[in-house]
């Protein structure tokens, strides 16, 4: 269970949200909606602990995430606007480094299975820089199936993906929620049927 208690955040001296409270239960998909500049990304980054709110706390299973960082990070997968892959390294190098970094041990076969799933077999040795935007996004997304994380926080996960990719991701989201996972996501196009049941949360643009 992820809980936000009385979050206040301001950027450039404009208050994005004030006293925002939110509970996301296990087995729930929260779809965060709002116009550009409403603070969706800021909220997600606060939920991951990357930025600190001006006021308020984020609790994971009742524990303040700033108190128990490593415990929370073990259970968290975050995909931001930036893919987190180095352009001069290959997909394989990037992924194996990321897995080591996040203390996930995956054998090579499983790694190749996931690469096949996202359609990158044959491209795994190419520096990521030379891949297309959609393929780069797929490299970043493939971590989703490698790290057994309970909490997925996905910021615009569908950007640059083709129809097949979007469908695949939505199915995984549905599957994850069915298994008792927890997802917070933003997206500019509405989620389709295949993403399953979800709760919508609207962030208003404030002046």
């Amino acid at each position, binding site marked *: 269970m992820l809980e936000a208690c009385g979050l206040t955040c301001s950027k450039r001296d404009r208050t994005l949200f004030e006293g925002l409270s939110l509970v996301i239960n296990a087995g729930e998909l929260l779809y965060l909606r709002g116009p550009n500049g409403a603070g969706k990304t800021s909220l997600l980054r606060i939920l991951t602990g990357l930025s600190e709110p001006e006021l308020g706390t984020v609790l994971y299973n009742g524990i303040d995430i700033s108190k128990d960082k490593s415990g929370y990070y073990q259970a968290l997968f975050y995909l931001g606007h*930036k893919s*987190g892959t*180095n352009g001069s390294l290959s997909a394989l190098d990037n992924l194996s480094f*990321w897995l080591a970094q*996040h203390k996930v041990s995956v054998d090579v076969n499983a790694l190749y299975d996931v690469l096949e799933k996202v359609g990158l077999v044959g491209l795994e040795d190419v520096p990521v820089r030379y891949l297309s935007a959609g393929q780069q996004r797929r490299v970043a997304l493939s971590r989703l199936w490698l790290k057994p994380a309970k909490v997925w926080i996905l910021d615009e996960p569908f950007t640059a993906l083709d129809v097949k990719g979007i469908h695949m991701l939505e199915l995984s989201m549905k599957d994850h929620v069915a298994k008792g996972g927890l997802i917070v996501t933003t997206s500019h196009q509405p989620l389709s049927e295949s993403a399953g049941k979800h709760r919508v949360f609207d962030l208003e643009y404030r002046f």
Partner: protein
Amino acid sequence: MSLYHGIFKRDMQIAFKQKAELVQPLMFLLMVVTLFPLGVSPSPDTLQRIGPGVIWIAAILSSLMAMERLFRDDFQDGSLEQYILSGMALPAVSAVKVAAHWLVSFVPLLLLSPLLAMFLNLTVDMYVALVLTLLLGTPLLSLIGAIAVGLTVGLQKGGVLLALLLIPVFIPLLIFATSAVDSAALQLPYHAQLAIIAAMLLLATALAPFAIAYSLKVSQN
């Protein structure tokens, strides 16, 4: 431990795939040093007088150019976010990255130093002192520079600002390092200067990783 070793290996791997970025600051250093005989005087005595200062100033300027590489790519492609979210100790990660950066950007400078010493007519004693000051002083440049890089990495136009922030902070190092080489030229002992530089290096090694980690967190906000 192997985690940090992994970071080190990755940084080295990336550095050797971006060789041009490593070589350019060195070429800049060489060219700046070449300007002095042309602009001041080619007379061996004058060059010997100004030599240590010229090499150190050129080293500081070229290090400012190489410094930005330290966190720029990791910030822009989001690797830094993933470092933070991996739950690793950010000060330790920063220290490892600084060490890797020092190896790839300053060790080549040390290799280039005999050439610079010849260009500026330094004696053997002076050269030995120069190498010692570079060995102790350049890690200090990397450590302190990394704090400012951490602060400016999120800004689009960080380049000149980085120099503005760092040059005043590097002044003591410049003074002690050149004074050590000057002492060597006069056959005087220069342990004191080396000891002071070493003390500054130890202080920076103890404190800078935390400051770098804090700066990187500030840039994430």
